């Protein structure tokens, strides 16, 4: 995007749909506006004071007319609503096979972590034509992750995970912006999204090295913070097996059932008392304050890494 150009590139799978809707709405609004303005000008000229135009019966109201211009706009609004929602639903439902990338925002930078342990700051490398799901959180205030060329945006909140997904459709470099006011250097809290062809992307990932995969870092933390002391397969404490937990429904002691997603795992670690798993003693302590956002993401990546990952580590525990 170095050359100035008028129209934004449509660089994601959703961008085209959004643009079609945008221009349709613009056209509809322009049409209505033009109609009203033409009517005002027309009446203004024809019925200017002193003009000879006939004005019989002028003080009458007309119920039918009123009802018409209540119902017709309403009908149009319903159509717009449904159309809008169909797009938004798509934009908010990440496909199951999406590649996970983690984002931690802080005043005033974006920290990105890839599952392979690669980290970057203010740049995000993604492969083209592959759905990417961002799991985002903030260390301080609210920020917002916005890539205009992709037409996607999501606020990033402290103490919570929010998600955003997209499929980039064009290789290239696109601006990444923070759109939630976050303090002095809000305007400078930008970066770039670099979209690469898949092969090149794989090479890039490999070249980054990193301190072991995110899951491996998580495994380390899992031991360092004593999680394995309870959740390891040989632990004395009766604690749930975390193997294959991610994505399952969990039954809680208070009768609720919840989906074990990122948010749930996070809450289990930080606020275990808020969702005790049915059938286990309520002994897990809260780790809030002990783990940084990055460490949490690593732990979660580890627990998500599937039966193999967790099972291996519990095997490790046998010492």
């Amino acid at each position, binding site marked *: 995007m170095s050359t100035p150009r008028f129209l934004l590139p449509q660089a994601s799978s959703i961008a085209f749909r959004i643009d079609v809707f945008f221009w349709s709405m613009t056209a509809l*609004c322009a049409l209505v506006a033009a109609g009203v303005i033409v009517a005002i000008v027309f009446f203004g000229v024809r019925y200017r004071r002193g003009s000879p135009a006939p004005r019989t019966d002028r*003080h009458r109201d007309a119920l039918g007319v009123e009802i018409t211009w209540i119902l017709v706009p309403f009908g149009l609004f319903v159509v717009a609503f449904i159309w809008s929602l169909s797009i938004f639903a798509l934009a908010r439902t990440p496909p199951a096979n999406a590649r996970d990338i983690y984002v931690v925002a802080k005043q005033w930078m974006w920290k990105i972590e890839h599952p392979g342990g690669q980290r970057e700051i203010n740049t995000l490398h993604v492969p083209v034509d592959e759905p990417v799901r961002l799991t985002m959180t903030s260390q*301080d205030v609210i920020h917002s992750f916005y890539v205009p060329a992709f037409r996607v*945006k999501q606020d990033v909140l402290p103490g919570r995970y929010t998600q955003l997904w997209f499929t980039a459709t064009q290789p290239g470099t696109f601006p990444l912006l923070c759109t939630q*006011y976050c303090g002095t250097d809000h305007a400078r809290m930008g970066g770039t999204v670099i979209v690469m062809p898949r092969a090149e992307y794989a090479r890039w990932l490999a070249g980054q090295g990193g301190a072991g995969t995110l899951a491996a870092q998580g495994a380390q933390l899992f031991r360092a913070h004593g999680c394995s002391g309870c959740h390891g397969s040989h632990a004395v404490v009766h604690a749930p097996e975390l193997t294959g937990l991610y994505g399952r429904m969990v039954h809680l002691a208070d009768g609720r059932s919840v989906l074990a997603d990122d948010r749930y795992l996070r809450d289990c670690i930080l606020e275990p008392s808020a969702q005790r798993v049915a059938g286990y003693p309520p002994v897990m302590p809260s780790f809030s304050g002990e783990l940084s956002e990055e460490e949490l993401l690593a732990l979660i990546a580890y627990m998500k890494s599937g039966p193999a990952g967790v099972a291996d580590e519990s095997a490790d525990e046998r010492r």
Partner: protein
Amino acid sequence: MSAAEAAVLPGSFLAGGHTLREWLITRDHKRIAILYGLGITFFFFLGGAAATLIRLNLITPEGALLQAATYNKAFTFHGVVMVWFFLIPSIPTTLGNFLLPLMIGARDVAFPRLNLLSWYLYIGGGVFAVAALLAGGVDTGWTFYAPFSTMFSNSHVFLVVIAVFVSGFSTILTGLNFIVTIHCLRAPGMSWFRLPLFVWAMYAVSLVMVLATPVLAMTLALIGLERGLGVGIFDPALGGDPLLFQHLFWFYSHPAVYIMILPAMGVASEIISCFARRRVFGYRFMTYSMLAIAVIGFLVWGHHMFVAGQSMYATLVFSLLSFVVAVPSAIKVFNWTATLRKGEISFESPMLYALGFVGLFMLGGLTGLMLAAPALDMPLHDTYFVIAHFHYVMVGGSVMAYLGGIHYWWPKLTGRRYPESWARFAAILMFFGFNLTFFPQYLLGYEGMPRRYHAYAPQFQVLNVLSSGGASILAVSYLLPIAYLLWSLRYGRAAGDNPWQARGLEWQTTSPPPTENFRRPPRVREVYDYAEPAP
């Protein structure tokens, strides 16, 4: 004012009691309206000065004029002052205060002392706002989002919160006063459906003021407490929910935008009917639609939070309701247009302002519709598209209507005529300056320029320069009325009681009206009775 008073009728509310003290303890709603007018004009130019800084800074992509921190304080102050110290009180406290009792044939509002107290609260709040500015400003944005405002900002959030809190009470008391006045003090024969639409607008807006403002006041108090104590319910470190703040804030602030537009709708209805010499088309629907806006307007606040992390279900409901609340606005736009049909239209300056209002409000409202669609709000949220949307409705809509109302009722307020050709010139200049300032911002928003940025990417410069250029035209067009209206106080020719041959009760008394409003009881008739000759 004193020069004007010599020529003014003896016994008018302007005559007698010239000392400052007599003005400051007055209980006459007309004098209180003038007091408000002074304050509001002051704050408009204060907010305008901040806007000037913003637009100057944005001429270059690097934002060369201001440092980032200063820029942030500039737009925050601009927003806070323009919203709470200019636009929300603007029409209700000046035109509303002056005209409401006159229009319903009453001698004053129901609680004149409370009315004066409201003014003092408004000024008291204003003092805090100015104090915050002098102390170094505040940088949270007018929306005060937690946890930035509670835990991170180190500017004078506290002072501004107090400022808004105090002026909130002023708003509440004004609303309360108007509701009771309209219920209890209508002249005999003045039934509900004979009320001018301006009075209906005041009624609807008072409802919103009374039911929304307490929520803001309390929410800001919580922000202040949380800042003071270092803990609180929006604090994510405790598991508190920052989005809860946004819910509470927008529960007030969306209705607040209708506080800003409903009075403007009332003014436009009066002016259009008068200069088209015709009963407002669909009078009853006009009243119902204002009540509908006032009530449904409370149920749409979540459209400010589509990308904030709100649940999908909430997004769905709020989006639908936002479309629903646009229907009554549509009714109004169409009815104003239809009122022109078969009228005898003349284009004096108030009418130019009113027609400008209709057009610009419509454009702003239509883009509001686009934002109400989550699929479009996702790219457009917090970009200049939103800035353009709300300046169209607030500046193009409400400020235009406010100025139209000032021009329309100026002869009634002062007994003087202003120079008409200057007024038309200013109105037309304003229309062009306005569009030049804010239309480019729609394009900027679509292109992805975020708001609250003190520096931006170079490709946005052309549009930004256009916008700044427009703003300077706009500034001139706002300074002009100040000049010729002040001039008219001294040199304007006498207006006569009813220069526009209008029909409302306020035109049946002298201009300016006597302290007791009516020397003999006004004759109550059907509203907008332009079929009959003027009484």
